[in-house]
């Protein structure tokens, strides 16, 4: 494996944030996706959705100003932006499942070349596991972005021909943002859209189990 710098988790979030547009309704999952709200492009307003029934979440509450009846899905007290609303959990997931969210961003253990996502359970892990809202979100978002490291801690590929981990959803991911690349899931397979600074398409393919379709002159990710 080439020993070169990769994007940090914050930089993955920063790149994924560029996929969000003004006025979008967006749900962010656990892990790297949760960092995205710190890197919104300047001048745009995004309405963050939480599956416990909030639309229009702002930044985390300042110390001393927390209200524990106003928390995000990670139990963190949050502020609201003007125009926010509350609703019950069924309506919150009607929004996720019914195609009302413009973008959802989830973490991932594996993504397949067809866009199958595995992100809720590691095979052989102890305990019950937990699904939470991920399956509803994966099934229903207009655009699903998966943010994750390109390889496992051991260096194995996480973008695979076929997932071996328990699935969250089938044919649901639209875009994968990793510490090495931006990849689109197209009907004909995976398309390499951007590369991390200093990395070549061949090197990234070498760390990817699924075939990457490479267009001429793949641009470098811009991290602004």
């Amino acid at each position, binding site marked *: 494996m080439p020993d070169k710098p990769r994007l940090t988790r914050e930089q993955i979030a920063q790149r994924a944030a560029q996929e969000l547009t003004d006025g979008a309704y967006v749900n962010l999952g656990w892990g790297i996706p949760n960092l995205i709200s710190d890197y919104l492009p300047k001048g745009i307003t995004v309405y963050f959705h939480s599956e416990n029934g909030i639309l229009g979440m702002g930044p985390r509450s300042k110390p001393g100003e927390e209200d524990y009846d106003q928390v995000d899905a990670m139990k963190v007290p949050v502020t609201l932006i003007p125009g926010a609303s509350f609703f019950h959990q069924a309506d919150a997931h009607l929004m996720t499942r019914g195609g009302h969210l413009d973008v959802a961003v989830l973490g991932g253990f594996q993504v397949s070349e067809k866009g199958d996502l595995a992100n809720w359970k590691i095979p052989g892990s102890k*305990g019950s596991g937990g699904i939470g809202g991920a399956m509803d979100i994966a099934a229903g978002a207009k655009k699903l972005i998966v943010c994750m490291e390109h390889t496992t801690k051991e260096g194995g590929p996480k973008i695979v021909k076929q997932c071996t981990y328990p699935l969250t959803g089938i044919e649901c991911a639209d875009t994968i943002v990793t510490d090495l690349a931006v990849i689109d899931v197209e009907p004909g397979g995976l398309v390499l859209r951007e590369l991390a600074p200093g990395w070549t398409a061949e090197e990234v393919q070498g760390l990817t189990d699924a075939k990457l379709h490479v267009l001429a002159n793949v641009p470098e990710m811009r991290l602004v």
Partner: protein
Amino acid sequence: MKEKIVDTLDAAVADIPDGARIMFGGFGGAGFPNNLIQALARKGTKDITAISNNCGTRDGELGIMFKNGLIRHVICSFPGPHANHFQDRFAKGEVTCELVPQGILCERMRTAAAGLLGFYTTVGVGTEVANGKEERVVDGKRCILEKPIHAQFALIKAQKADALGNLTYRLAARNFNPIMAMAAEFTIAEVDEIVPVGSIHPENVITPAIFVHRIVQAKGLRYAG
């Protein structure tokens, strides 16, 4: 007028029998009927089938029920990182668990509330959730049949109630509570405040009184973590 208000938490749960199927509201530390759960644990009602988003936060929320071995089966979406009492009993085989995608958990309860017999969804197709369920293709999409989740009781948390049982909720403490209130045969609401009938403007009622059968006022309890 039928009297729905009871004076004590113990009286509020006195007639819940062993083996009951009970829904418990709450999500993310907000909107849990913690006083009612404590009362049920004091009473020692056992062999419960619990329907809840999660499985407790250490001793808090449903944690005490798992700690005391009172729950036999749980239907939930996300047991949670601090559900240690649940995980201990699950590992020993003393509790069984059905994991349900969170929105599907909501809709299966709403299906029960609405008197419907099921629905088809794409959520969970091709995953462990689909095991044993009817799968078919509707309008070209693979989907599975999900059936209603019924319960004899719902224990919920609201902010205000009037004597009729009209309820309001505070901020995001609403979460599962209105859904469970509609789905269960008998709903018991723990509230911060009981107000005169007519003082909640009809436009502001979130759970209409028809869904609420018993009300008890209690100071809110919250568990950190």
